[in-house]
């Protein structure tokens, strides 16, 4: 069941588009904001609301890398692996982070604190290397700074 709050936020979005289907990406983001991820059940509930089939919605969900169809940790780390960050030391940062968290990209730490995901260029290349944790951007990273940040989010 979609919560009253989720339903209310989704319905507010409907006013911005002439067709219900257009809202499905925004709707999944709303659900994800509330629950952390988008479950099969949520897809079915959303399909009923938007007059689509669950398969249609899942087809959209699986295209977009920032819609999570599996549970994620409390904090999601998006580590930029694009070209400028690669030049500026991405490999070392990734090694440092994976060793420290004990997980590889695509995995969630056993304590459920962190999910580590790769991300394409974050558009802050003059301050590479960079990553995002949840909604926060962190730039000009080195291993010391990385340790400080990870500690802060524990």
């Amino acid at each position, binding site marked *: 069941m979609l919560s009253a709050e989720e339903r209310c936020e989704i319905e507010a979005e409907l006013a911005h588009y002439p067709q219900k289907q*257009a809202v499905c990406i925004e709707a999944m983001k709303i659900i994800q904001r509330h629950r952390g991820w988008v479950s099969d059940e949520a897809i079915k509930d959303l399909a009923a609301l938007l007059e689509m089939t669950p398969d249609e919605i899942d087809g959209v969900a699986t*295209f977009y890398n920032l819609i999570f169809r599996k549970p994620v940790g409390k904090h999601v780390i998006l580590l930029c692996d694009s070209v400028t960050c690669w030049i*500026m030391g991405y490999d070392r940062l990734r090694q440092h982070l994976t060793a420290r968290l004990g997980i590889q990209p695509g995995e969630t730490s056993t304590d459920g604190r962190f999910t580590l995901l790769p991300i394409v260029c974050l*558009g802050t*290349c*003059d301050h590479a290397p960079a990553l995002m944790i949840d909604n926060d*951007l962190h730039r000009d990273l080195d291993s010391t700074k990385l340790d400080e940040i990870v500690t802060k989010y524990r």
Partner: protein
Amino acid sequence: MEQPLTKNIRPGEEPLDLKAYEQAGGYQATRKALQGMTPAEVTELVKDSNLRGRGGAGFPTAQKWSFVPMGDDAPRRKYLIANADEMEPGTFKDRLLLEGDPHQLLEGMLIGAYAIQAEVAYIFLRWEYKLAAERLTKAIAEAYGAGYLGHNILGSGYGLELHLHVSAGRYMCGEETGLLNALEGKRATPRSKPPFPQTSGLWGKPTIVNNVETLCNLPHIINNGAEWFKGLSHSQDGGTKIYGVSGRVRRPGTWELPMGTTIREILEDHAGGMRDGCKFRGLLPGGASTDFLVEEHLDVKMDFDSVQKAGSRLGTGTMIVLDDQTCPVGMVQNLERFFAQESCGWCTPCRDGLPWTAQILQALEDGRGQPRDLQRLALHTKLLGPGHTFCALAPGAMEPLQSALQYFKEDFEQHIREHRCPWR
């Protein structure tokens, strides 16, 4: 030197709110256009200014608009979209404009929408630009509150509805027709052209998609005229350009400079040259999908025609510098892996060909390269080049590869000869 696009931007500070933006001359162009000019006059002025699209392709903006059906018989509603899905690797110029002066973008959109008589506008923003989303949301609310959006703007009889759409990832969304599918709530695969979006775009209606920087130029063209705009430039293309440099230079960053500033001036005077201990080897002039340029090209002017003449593309105008401490094969491997990952899978050459190129390059990096690999890579640059794929993603991916094979051939051969990456 005039810097119209960034004159209101103060790094590290909040952007101008509506009142401050108005005090700085903001929304004067809206007044001028909506109250004193016909849509055709606005388009004509933009045509005279030689404004070319700043998203990468450099298509003349007014010409793009000119294909939109006008008059009472035109299909409705019509749409204007600001492409704020800045995802080209190495590109960080629209972020500056979105975070730094959101009202400038809204005003540019108003003028563009008025020129094509669009009823609805969307800003298509990438998810990661959180600060931009926050500031745009505030600016949109202010603009509605002051009557710059909504019905009968400034008593002109013209009305515009404007919404912010925040995306959920994928490079393909930046492609014009992929973006339209994303806005319709579908997978962001590209659409067949023709029909072009100008006649059949969002929900089959006439639609213009313009880059953020392109739109931000419009208020200044309306206020100051076409001759002034052309005078800002060192080349045929009008205006200033927001250039950027990233990589191992002393001062990476963005600068608004006359269109047609040379690579050398941007690299040495503004980015401060290479960091100590690093030597320049080459650069991608405008993002990941442009051809490498090297030492001999440093005096090339950074405008659409000059960079094309040098064998590359201006693209987004944000350069990525390759230094001698960085493996060129590894750099190209990183780029091709990106493109392989971001291929939407719609057409076979791109879906299957890009992973092959990335795998061959990885083999070279791991010391498993074969002499024939260089021919295989060269063949791919032809098979995935223009005319073989559904959209520009794969041809764009081939640009850094084909030019790397040309300029850094010795490095590729060394990987094969020594069965290792010399930089590891």
